[in-house]
């Protein structure tokens, strides 16, 4: 059951998911993960995105795992985010876990 909480961080989210705004994004996600569990993230498909953001999400996944928390995506990624994942080799068939997380797909290796 999702809860679109009124406790959402009041900090306005940055306008891109790139290195220009990565410090702000880092702060936002860190704050969310330190306070709540589970945390679910959503972003638009056509937003500007680069590797720094994908790397940040991977770091957030690792932190959540270490802390026994749940961190997931509200919906499967598409558009620019998916393209960056493909170009960056994140969705290799040898890594079914990535497809589960990013695409909400079950992949049989």
């Amino acid at each position, binding site marked *: *059951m*999702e809860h*679109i*909480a009124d*406790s*959402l*961080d009041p900090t306005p*989210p*940055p*306008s*891109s*998911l790139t*290195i*220009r705004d*990565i*410090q702000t994004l*880092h702060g*936002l996600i*860190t704050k*969310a*993960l330190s306070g*709540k569990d*589970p*945390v*679910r*993230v*959503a972003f*638009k498909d*056509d937003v*500007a*995105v*680069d*590797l*720094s953001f994908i*790397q*940040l999400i991977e*770091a*957030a*996944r*690792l*932190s*959540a*795992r270490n802390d026994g*928390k*749940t*961190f*997931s995506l*509200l919906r499967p990624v598409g*558009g*620019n985010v998916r*393209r*960056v994942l*493909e*170009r*960056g*080799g*994140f969705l*290799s068939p*040898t890594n079914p*876990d990535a497809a589960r997380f990013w695409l909400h797909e079950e992949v049989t290796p």
Partner: protein
Amino acid sequence: MSTIDPMDIFRAEAAELLEQIEQGLLDLEHQLDDRAQIDSVFRGLHTLKGSGAMFGFDALAAFTHHCETAFDRVRKGLTPATTDLVMAVLAARDHMRALVDDPNGDHAAVGAELLRKLQDAVAGGSGQPAAAAPIAEAPKSFAVDETVPPATAGKDDGSELHRWNIRFSLPRDTMVNGTNPLALLDEMRDLGEADVRVDLSRVPPLDAIKPTELYLSWIVTLTTDRPRADIEDVFIFVMDEMTLELEDLGPVGATETIPVAAPAEIAAAAATPIAVPVAVEPIHNAASAADKTSPAAGAAATDAKAHRKAESVRVPAERLDELMDRVGELVIAQSRLTQIAGSSLDTQLRTVSEEMERLCSELRTTMMVLRMVPVGTLFERFRRLVHDLQRDTGKTIELVTAGETTEMDKTVIERLADPLVHLVRNAADHGLESPEGRRAAAKSEIGRVTLSARQVGGEVIVTVADDGRGIDRDKIRAKAEASGLIPTGAALSEQEILQLILQPGFSTAATVTNLSGRGVGMDVVKKTVESLRGTIDISTRLGEGTTIALRIPLTLAIIDGLLVRVGKGRYVIPLPAVEECLELSLEEDLRSRGRSFLSLRGSLVPFIRLREIFSTGTKPDPYQKIVVVSTGEERVGLVVDQIIGDHQTVIKSMSKLHDDVATFSGATILGDGGVALILDVANLVAAGREQEAQLRATA
């Protein structure tokens, strides 16, 4: 605590990149087939473009892109490096500087003209008519004219498909520097069939990650007929600092299936950012996480340790200044402690005081080193200046530099830049003869300008020398007399005559050029050097050349001084200027009145009674002291009442109200909280010289 504006960081990096590009171009001009320089310029342009785009300098990125593309063609052998191309990119480099300094200015017309020249240079070098290129507002001929062979080329010419296992990790600052790893992966895909897998094992958790740094690495299985060099070429920008493992797995069998990754669309994501790209939503009772198979968390810590290595850190100069101020205050406090301990019988206090003194001294030395940069960083700029001066004067000029490793305070180096530019321009424009003139004087047609630096004691001597016509002293005297600068027939030493060229408005140049000759500048050189507590020595030989030496103290902030007392006041004499101390008995003092000369090992040295200059209104001590100070060739004795001892002096600037008080160069706070004025030795030596001249005139 001050925060650093990312724009300032970019500007500092851009300045370095532009410097690197300029030096590379100047080297390339001498050897147009120098592959290393071609690559260096290309890398510089590429990084500047990438960083510029990342920090929002879009005009810079767009403009630089054209130059980068031009050099990419050179790199790929599609266009030869020519002098015209180098000149075009040098001019473009200056435009890039303007785009960095004023990103919102109106640079379009200038930029378009420069790109047109660049296009002509590329088209000319390629043997293609420039008109063949579609010139609109911004030329793009070399951008659309890519004729790189496709990845599959060569299959029919006997080259064999090989499979390569490639593992690479890039420097941590890759993304900050504007390099996009995705572009590297795309380039690899251009070489053949690539199976790309990211390695996440070094990505640390959120609390340990520096989000602008790159922790990802990649494993690529590439099937290509291209040679190893082409694969390595993908990493040309980052090759120096990256880790790259290239393993040739051998030829691919004809019937073997080649694994294909799924890079469906590799088009750049150019979507306009939307208002709300991300929402971090805390939820309740969500399904448990599915991902349990990630790398171990410990890997991050191990990785962080493995990557901990000696690196240089960019520190804003203001922070160094702040630190210097703190060290200065500490030195003052330590000085007070030393004074208190000195009058105490407490041995423990004395021990601690001595320890503090040692530590302060070491800290001060360390601080000084932090601010020191090689003077070569300044000299490098003059290669371009001389390059342009050759074009403007029609003379062939060789710039020789020496002593580039000599270190000086960064602030001093920055402030010396303009005076040196003026001196080098003067040397090129007026010092050196025309090629015909040099031939007539039985000299090589190539004029030589030498820039050198060396450390002598607490000073660095920066010299600009030329092997030109030299300065005609008679001409200077005549000009000075004509302009009323000196009385007709005034008795002046050779050095005094030469020093006249440092007077405002003085010029012996028959013609005024756009480079020099207006008589504006040498006085500014003098002012700047004096503001650095430096002096200028000029030597010249007619027909052989001129040497102008700037003697500059090593640092501006803290000096070793000799603390003296005159009347009730205390003063500091910079120690590097002190040659020796003598005693002046009351009898000798009385005997020497009216002459004020001291016979020192066979030579007469004028001396000045500071008590009289400072109007102390006190009687002289029975045994006064003479501190002999010098500024190189000239000496003067300063009569003081007491020599207190050496003193580490933190220089405090005088207020603007005291700008016209030439006798003092600053002030310092003593250990007891009192204030001592720092004597301006150059000024006092000049006063001694005047005194000597007057005495000679009346003798």
